[in-house]
């Protein structure tokens, strides 16, 4: 039940983000959107994801966007015409995706294929093989450690890219983008 309420709030927030022209309000609503989805993650049993989303999505990315707004402009220009083509493209894509969901296993079904493959092994063996109570931690750091290595590489690359883009131009101060990168 809370599930449905939160999803409805998420949809309302997203629609408000489309309508608003004031970028400061848009960025704040993006933070609200992330926080609501973090609440939904808790309900869906993904506690690790929830606090990462709350810290990174609602915290760091909001700060980064506010920094960008401070360095550029705060208002979005009103477009001259109503964009019809994007609406059609979005409708068609959405209809195709909706059609795709009809074959999906129903929400919460314990017999879905996703729960029958490798996950039972992680749940049964990780306690003795890795010894960490949190299964997500043992999969992240041990079974799929290479994924995490790749992730660190991506952050490193993005950090270098940001330094190259914003460093060395002189003029205005732009420290806020670089220092908050560690997320």
């Amino acid at each position: 039940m809370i599930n449905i309420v939160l999803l409805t709030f998420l949809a309302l927030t997203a629609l408000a983000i489309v309508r608003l022209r004031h970028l400061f309000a848009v960025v704040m609503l993006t933070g609200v959107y992330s926080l609501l989805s973090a609440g939904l993650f808790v309900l869906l049993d993904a506690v690790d994801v929830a606090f990462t989303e709350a810290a990174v999505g609602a915290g760091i990315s909001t700060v980064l966007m506010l920094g960008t707004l401070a360095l550029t402009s705060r208002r979005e220009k009103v477009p001259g015409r109503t964009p019809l083509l994007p609406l059609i493209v979005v409708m068609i894509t959405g209809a195709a995706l909706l059609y795709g969901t009809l074959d999906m296993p129903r929400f919460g079904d314990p017999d879905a294929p996703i729960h029958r493959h490798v996950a039972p092994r992680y749940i049964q063996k990780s306690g003795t093989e890795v010894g960490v109570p949190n299964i997500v931690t043992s999969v992240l750091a041990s079974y799929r450690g290479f994924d995490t290595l790749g992730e660190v590489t991506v952050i490193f690359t993005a950090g270098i890219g940001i330094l190259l883009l914003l460093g060395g131009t002189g003029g205005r101060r732009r420290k806020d983008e670089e220092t908050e990168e560690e997320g």
Partner: protein
Amino acid sequence: MTLADIPGLYNYWVVILLMMVGLYIVVSRGNLVKKIVGLVVFQTSVFLLYISMGKIIGGTAPILTGRPEIFSNPLPHVLILTAIVVGISTTALGLALVVRIGDAYGTIEEDEIAKADHEAEFGGPETP
């Protein structure tokens, strides 16, 4: 499908609605910061899709307590943890690009940037 399937698909449908809202913002808005916000909305809805698929009704968070319990699938959680961190690095890189573009052109509206480019290339305003 029948009417009885709707509660089992409601999560996915709202997630698809959110995805499409994100996609609409990305393709229809000319402001670059707004475009990045659209990407963030899209991204978060993809996270929701994955986590929804990992949920088992009556399950708990996948933390071993010693008691026999049903756990939700931990694998999507791991994938999405990685995706969140990768997502914030791409967002940060995109915002850095926006700041750089704002410096170079004095605007972050797509059509004004295109106009400035056209003038720089052909030495006059665009004639349709």
